[in-house]
């Protein structure tokens, strides 16, 4: 009789169904942990250097609350959630629409950041070299914006797949992985918003 290497007398509980978590979800949570640590360091640097700039301008003088951008980004979390739950129920069309709205909202957020930077750089003459505030502000907000860009690229690709009919119910778990990343980017924005625009001013 061909005996397989480890078919051994097993205890009862290993006869129970053997279900392990989805590797994509676990992997994304790990990536989020690592990314969160990177953001944490930039946030610590921001807070540590608050009020330590040797020259102006100060945050309160030039920063304005990015209300519109914040609303866009936070509501995109809801729409991406909607996309996932629609796909899970097999409603591909609904998912496509939700993805499209998510991409638009994310792009709108990016546009508000771009407009803010344009204003600061060209009208206020405030750059990353100006002082410590500029250094920490542009790097923290820029780090977040670059994550939004990455998320938008993935969401756009998914949207294109979905428009061309290549997205189905079986991809629901994969889309959930992507949505986790997007929720993380949103959560980071809440922290950035509080630190830079509320605490910092």
């Amino acid at each position: 009789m061909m005996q397989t290497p480890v078919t051994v007398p097993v205890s009862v509980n290993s006869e129970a169904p053997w279900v392990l978590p989805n590797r994509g979800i676990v992997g994304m949570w790990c990536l989020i942990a690592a990314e969160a640590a990177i953001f944490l360091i930039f946030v610590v640097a921001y807070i540590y250097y608050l009020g330590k700039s040797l020259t102006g301008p100060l945050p309160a003088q030039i920063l304005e609350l990015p209300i519109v951008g914040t609303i866009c980004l936070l509501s995109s979390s809801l729409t991406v959630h909607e996309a996932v739950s629609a796909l899970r129920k097999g409603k591909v069309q609904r998912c496509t629409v939700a993805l499209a709205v998510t991409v638009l909202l994310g792009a709108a957020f990016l546009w508000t950041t771009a407009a803010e930077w344009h204003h600061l750089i060209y009208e206020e003459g405030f750059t990353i070299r100006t002082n410590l505030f500029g250094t920490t502000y542009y790097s923290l907000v820029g780090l977040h914006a670059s994550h939004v860009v990455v998320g938008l690229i993935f969401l756009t690709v998914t949207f294109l797949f979905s428009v061309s009919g290549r997205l189905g119910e079986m991809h629901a778990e994969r889309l959930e992985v992507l949505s986790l990343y997007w929720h993380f980017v949103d959560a980071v924005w809440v922290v950035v918003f509080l630190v830079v625009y509320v605490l910092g001013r």
Partner: protein
Amino acid sequence: MAKEAPVLEAIDQTAPASHSSGPGVVYEWLTTVDHKKIGIMYIVYALIFLVLAGAQALLMRIQLAVPNNHFVTPQVFNRLFTMHGSTMVFFVGIPILFGFGNYLIPLMIGARDMAFPRLNAFSFWISAFGGILLYLSYFAGSGLYGAGSAPDVGWFAYAPLTAKVFSPGHSTDYWTLSILMSGIGTTGTAINIVATVICMRCKGMTMTRMPLLVWLLLVTSCMVFVAVSPLTAAQIMLTLDRYLGSHFFDTQAGGSAVLWMHFFWIFGHPEVYILVLPAFAFINEIVPVFSRKAIFGYSAMVAASVGIGFISLSVWAHHMFTVGMGPAGNTFFVFATMVVSVPTGIKMFNWLATIWGGRVRFRTPMMFAIGFLFQFLMAGLTGIMLSAAPFDWQLSASYFVVAHFHYVLVGGILFALFAAFYYWYPKITGRMMSETLGKWHFWLFIIGFHLTFDFMHIPGLLGMPRRIYTYEAGRGWEYWNLIVGIGAMVQAIGTLIFVYNLVHSYFRGKIAGPDPWDAWTLEWSTASPPPSYNFAVEPNVGSRRPLWDLKHPEDPDSSYE
């Protein structure tokens, strides 16, 4: 011992590991996503860098062997210690441990590959390119003769020396970018390991039945997320400083050099544990097999590892006692540092209790493991000495510190690594390493090690600072440095024997068979080397020692756990 038959019988004999030949081989290795091949590439790549960085250490020891020496120029000396440290930590330590992890984890948990095979290949190649980039610096700038543009800022690259003003040219950029790449690769592999351990275990392989090696690499990988990411962030800041003129570490504009120290050591100290936990992991597997006993205190071992993982995140500033953090900060970090020795002590006692009363087989892996136990204990003791802030004020940045951490890295981690090589080489290549050469390697290396690093403590106590290019005669340092230099040469000879043994045994070694050590974990249940799919049939385990259960069906572990 008599019952090796079931294992042999069990293996899928129809498909032994096949090797194609010709130019196809290169293509196969370059494009592979197989965890075993990637693991081997990690290990070989780290060995090459080990030899390079070892050669750099030898050059430094020659320079310091006698007073007033001018064997190398001061500039070259600075580059030597920077490259030696950076290479050993980022391009030897991490890749070699991840190499073993990559190779062993899927085999040990009964999986056919890692969770993300392509991410695995990506992580390896980006780390590999990081190392190559670092060494390309030797060919840049003024070229090899003047040691090119090799970085010269030390492996912890303190600000403001790294600012564009003080380090013009691109030497520091080579350092920053290669470390950044290595960090991305390390994080990628860590994600992969966690996902593999959590999601790919075979039937019956519950968390409490996993081999301790798997547990420890899981803890290590979790630490990578929180420890390596700060370094990545700090490297981004440094690059911004150097290229876009930001002021993170620019003291002229109000930036803080101490902040770099914090960010670096938030990475730097957990990094020591990231390197040493896999070393513990090897010892956890080797000691029981060669003592013919199950590991003593499995759950205490797991708890201690997790404890080390957490505590090691709160000890970084013991590298900064001389900065002047004030009594509160100092007290906290003294206390936290001393607390780490508690879980480490638990492990030490568990290993001793495993050996106690066992029928110990003194084969080469076990000899290196015992060397590890003894030397790691000694390294821990000098560590406790240095953790006391006033003692550290006296000896910070002296050769005492250098001797201490080399005791950890060489006496601890490298010995464990050598043990791992002798232990798993038969599995990886299908052939045994030569015992005779192994014993020569062990004895030469342990003598060389003690000559070098025992005596290195003394010039440190006598006040010799680290990183000095040369010194005057008559300070009482010269004989000690000469002994240290001789010891380094003995170690080098030992290492050459090891490398010769690796190559020689690959072609001429005794055929190992699937289970040469009569071991108990799953990797020994498949052929050596394992077929690309690892297991013909998905294993189903009922205890921590599935192969014991298989060999002793009359008295399986599963009826006790």
